[in-house]
C-alpha cells in the first residue's frame, strides 16, 4: 500500500503563498504549523503577524490571527496572553520588527517573562519595503540604503538581539537556527517545538531566531542564497542554543 | 461659598488637613471640592491644597483669592498673604511663623500648635490642633464631623491614635474659644 508521507499541514490554508521564489518565510510558516498540529494546540493558538513580508501570514495560518502595528507584536501578544493565559500565543516577527522599531517592546516583554513564543525571522534586510538595511544586515552587505555595503562607522554593526535577550531574566529558551538546508530545517522544527513546549509548560518567554534566505533582495539565486547563509550570515550569526533554562 | 488654602511643607499633614475637612463638610451635606497641588508644584518640599465649601454649585476649585488660609510655615505665608480675599483670615502656626501680616485688611489667628502638640506628647497632631482651631473659629464644620471624616479616611488606625487626634482637635478649638489667639 502506498502511503502519503508528506503533505500540507492541517493549519496551513490551501492558498498559494505570495512570497518570492526561494523565500524562507513559507518554510517557516509550514514548520510552525506542523508543530502546532503535532502538539495538538491548533484550536487554542492565537498568532500575531508582523508588518513586513509576513504581514499576510494570517492568510496562511489556519488559526486565530490578530494583526499588530509594526514592532508591537510582543505588546499585543502580552495583552492577549494575559486575558487568555491558557491559550498559546505566538508572535511572528522580522528583523526590523523585532530588532529596530520594536526593540523596546521585545526586550520588555521578554523581561516580564511573558509566557509567549516569538518566531524571529532574520533575513538581514527589509524585504517588503525593497531591501533596505536591517539592524541585522551584515557588515559590507549591500542594501538599497547602504550603497557600497554596510559600514560600521556610518551604520553601526549588526545587532545581536537574541544574545541580548538571553541576558534578560524572563527568557527561558532562545535558539538561533536556519532554514537553508535540510538539516537546518529539521533543527529549526525541533527548536520551534521546544519553544512552544516551554510555553505550554508555562515556563516563560521563548524565542527562535531563524536565518532565512531572501533571494530577491540579496539578488542571488535560491541555491546561492542558501549557500550564502552558510558562508557569510553564520559568521556573524552563528547557529546555537543561546539560552536554555528549560532543563 | 468659602475657599480655604492649607499650606506648609511636606510631612506637616497639610494635605490631610484639607482632605479631612473636605470629607467632614461633605458629610455635613455641603458641596465641596478639594484640589491638591500636584506635579512640579509639589517639588521642593512644599505642600498645599484648596478646599471650597458651599451651599451651592462650586464653579472653580482653584485657590484664587481664598477666604481662609491655614499656614504652617513662613514661605507659605509669603505665597498666600498677597492673594487672600480682603477681610480674610489667616491661621498661623506661630511656632513656625513669627512675623506679622503685612496687610491690614486680613485677620491673623496665631496658634502655638507645636507647643500644644508637645504638651499632648506627639508632634504628629500639629495639623489636628490647627484644624481644631480653624473649625472652632470658622464654624464651617464641627469637631465631631472632623472625627467622623478622619475615621472614614484612616480606617485601620489604632484607637489610641484616634484618641490623640481628638485631643489635638479639642485643644486647638479650646485655644480659640478661650480667646488666647488674638
Amino acid at each position: 500500500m502506498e502511503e502519503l508521507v508528506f503533505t500540507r499541514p492541517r493549519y496551513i490554508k490551501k492558498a498559494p503563498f505570495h512570497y518570492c521564489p526561494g523565500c524562507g518565510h513559507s518554510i517557516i510558516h509550514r514548520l510552525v504549523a506542523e508543530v502546532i498540529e503535532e502538539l495538538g494546540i491548533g484550536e487554542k493558538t492565537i498568532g500575531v503577524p508582523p508588518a513586513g513580508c509576513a504581514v499576510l501570514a494570517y492568510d496562511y495560518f489556519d488559526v486565530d490571527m490578530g494583526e499588530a502595528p509594526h514592532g508591537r507584536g510582543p505588546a499585543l501578544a502580552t495583552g492577549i496572553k494575559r486575558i487568555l493565559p491558557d491559550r498559546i500565543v505566538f508572535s511572528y516577527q522580522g528583523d526590523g520588527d523585532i530588532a529596530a522599531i520594536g526593540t523596546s517592546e521585545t526586550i520588555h516583554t521578554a523581561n516580564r517573562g511573558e509566557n509567549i513564543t516569538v518566531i524571529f525571522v532574520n533575513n538581514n534586510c527589509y524585504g517588503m519595503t525593497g531591501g533596505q538595511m536591517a539592524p541585522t544586515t551584515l557588515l559590507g552587505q549591500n542594501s538599497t540604503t547602504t550603497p557600497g555595503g554596510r559600514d560600521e562607522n556610518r551604520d553601526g554593526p549588526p545587532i545581536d538581539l537574541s544574545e541580548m535577550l538571553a541576558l534578560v531574566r524572563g527568557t527561558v529558551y532562545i535558539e538561533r537556527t536556519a532554514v537553508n538546508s535540510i538539516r537546518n530545517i529539521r533543527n529549526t522544527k525541533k527548536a520551534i517545538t521546544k519553544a512552544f513546549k516551554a510555553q505550554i509548560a508555562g515556563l516563560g518567554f521563548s524565542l527562535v531566531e531563524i536565518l532565512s534566505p531572501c533571494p530577491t533582495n540579496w539578488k542571488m539565486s535560491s541555491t546561492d542564497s542558501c549557500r550564502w547563509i552558510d558562508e557569510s550570515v553564520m559568521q556573524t550569526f552563528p547557529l546555537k542554543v543561546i539560552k536554555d533554562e528549560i532543563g | 461659598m468659602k475657599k480655604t488654602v492649607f499650606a506648609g511643607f511636606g510631612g506637616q499633614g497639610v494635605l490631610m488637613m484639607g482632605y479631612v475637612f473636605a470629607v467632614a463638610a461633605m458629610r455635613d451635606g455641603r458641596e465641596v471640592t478639594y484640589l491638591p497641588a500636584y506635579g512640579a508644584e509639589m517639588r521642593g518640599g512644599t505642600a498645599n491644597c484648596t478646599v471650597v465649601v458651599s451651599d451651592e454649585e462650586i464653579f472653580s476649585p482653584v485657590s484664587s483669592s481664598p477666604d481662609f488660609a491655614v499656614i504652617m510655615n513662613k514661605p507659605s505665608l509669603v505665597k498666600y498673604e498677597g492673594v487672600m480675599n480682603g477681610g480674610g483670615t489667616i491661621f498661623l502656626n506661630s511656632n513656625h511663623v513669627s512675623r506679622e501680616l503685612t496687610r491690614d485688611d486680613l485677620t491673623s489667628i496665631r496658634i502655638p500648635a507645636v507647643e500644644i502638640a508637645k504638651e499632648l506628647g506627639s508632634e504628629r497632631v500639629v495639623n489636628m490642633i490647627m484644624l481644631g482651631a480653624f473649625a472652632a473659629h470658622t464654624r464651617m464644620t464641627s469637631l465631631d464631623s472632623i472625627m467622623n471624616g478622619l475615621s472614614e479616611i484612616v480606617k485601620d488606625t489604632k484607637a489610641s491614635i484616634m484618641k490623640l487626634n481628638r485631643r489635638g482637635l479639642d485643644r486647638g478649638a479650646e485655644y480659640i474659644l478661650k480667646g488666647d489667639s488674638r
Partner: protein
Amino acid sequence: MDKKLLMRGSQVIGEAAIRAGCRFYAGYPITPQNEIPEFMSGAMADLEGGTFIQAESEIAAINMVIGASMAGARAMTSSSSPGISLKQEGISFLAALELPAVIVNVMRGGPGLGNIAPSQGDYFQATRGGGHGDYRSIVLAPAHGQELADLTRKAFEYADRYRTPVMILADGMMGQMMEPVVFPDPINLDELPPKPWVLDGAQGRPSRIIKSLILDTVEMEEHNWKLDRKYKIISGEIPHAETYMTEDAKLVVVAYGTAARIARGGIKRAREMGLKVGLLRPVTLWPFPDRAIREMSRLVKDFMVFEMNTGQMIDDVRLSLEGRSNVHFYGRPGGIVSTPDEIGKAISSLYYRQHLKED
C-alpha cells in the same frame, strides 16, 4: 447605589472603569494622571481575572490594550497629552480593526512637553482622530467628579456597542480635584452581550482574522465606507449637550469640561447683573452636538466660545452654525484657569459690545 465618596478625579475614573467591567489596564506614568495607573495596580490585584501592566512606553500600553481587546476583555489605558500623541498609531489601529477600548487623556499644557496645568489643547487631536487615516473616535468630556464616573461607564458601553475606541477627555484639574461622587453598581460581566469576533482559539469554529491591511483598493474603499456608515450611526445616536439658563438667552457661551464649569460661574454673575446669558456644554465632543447649537441659533445671534486653548472647538461651533450667528472667542491657553469673575467680565464686555442690552 453606594454612598457619596470624596475622591480624586483620576481615581474616580479607575473605580468607575472597574465597575464598568474593565479587566485590563496598561499604562505608563505621566503627570497629571499618575493616580490612574496607581489606582488600577491595586484594584486589578484585588480582582479575580484583573490585569494591570505598567508598560515600558505609551506605545506598548496601547498595543497591550489592542491585544486584550482582541481577546475579548474590556480594556483601558490612560495618559496625558504627549503620551496620547504616542498612542495615536494604536488608536488608529483600534478604529481600523473595529476593536473596543477606552483611552483616557488627562490633558496638560502643550505643545511639546508643555506644562502639567489644566489645558484643552488636545481638542483637535481627540476629535479629528489624531492618528493616521480616515477614522473617528468617540470623545466624551466630563466636567465634574460625578460625570467622570458616569461617562467612564458610558465610554465602555459605547466602545462595545460600536466596536470603536472611545476617549475620555479630561484635564489636569479634573484629574487632580476631589469631588463627591456616587458610583453606579458594578456591572455583571456575564450579562454583557457575547462578542462573536474575539480571538480565543478556533475551537469548534473556523479560524478568525482581525486585521487592517487591505491591499485591494475596492475592498479598502468599502471598509472605509463601512466605518463611515458606523460613524454616521454614532453621530445620529449619541451627540449630547447640556444647557444652562438658555431659555431666554441672548448670548450663549459654548464650553466643555473644566472651562464649562467655570463658565457657569461667569454666567451666574452675568445673570446677577441682569444679562441674559446661558451655557451650552457639549458632553460628546465627537460626535459634536451640532444640531443642538444650530437649533439655538434661531433665537441666539451671538455665541461666545470659551476654551482653555487658542481656539479649537470654535471651528466645530462655526461649522454647526453655518454662518447663522456671530461666533466670538475667549481663551486661556497656558494652564491658567480663569476665574468665574473673569469669564463674567468677558461675557458682559461682549454683551455690551454687541448691543444686546439695548434690545
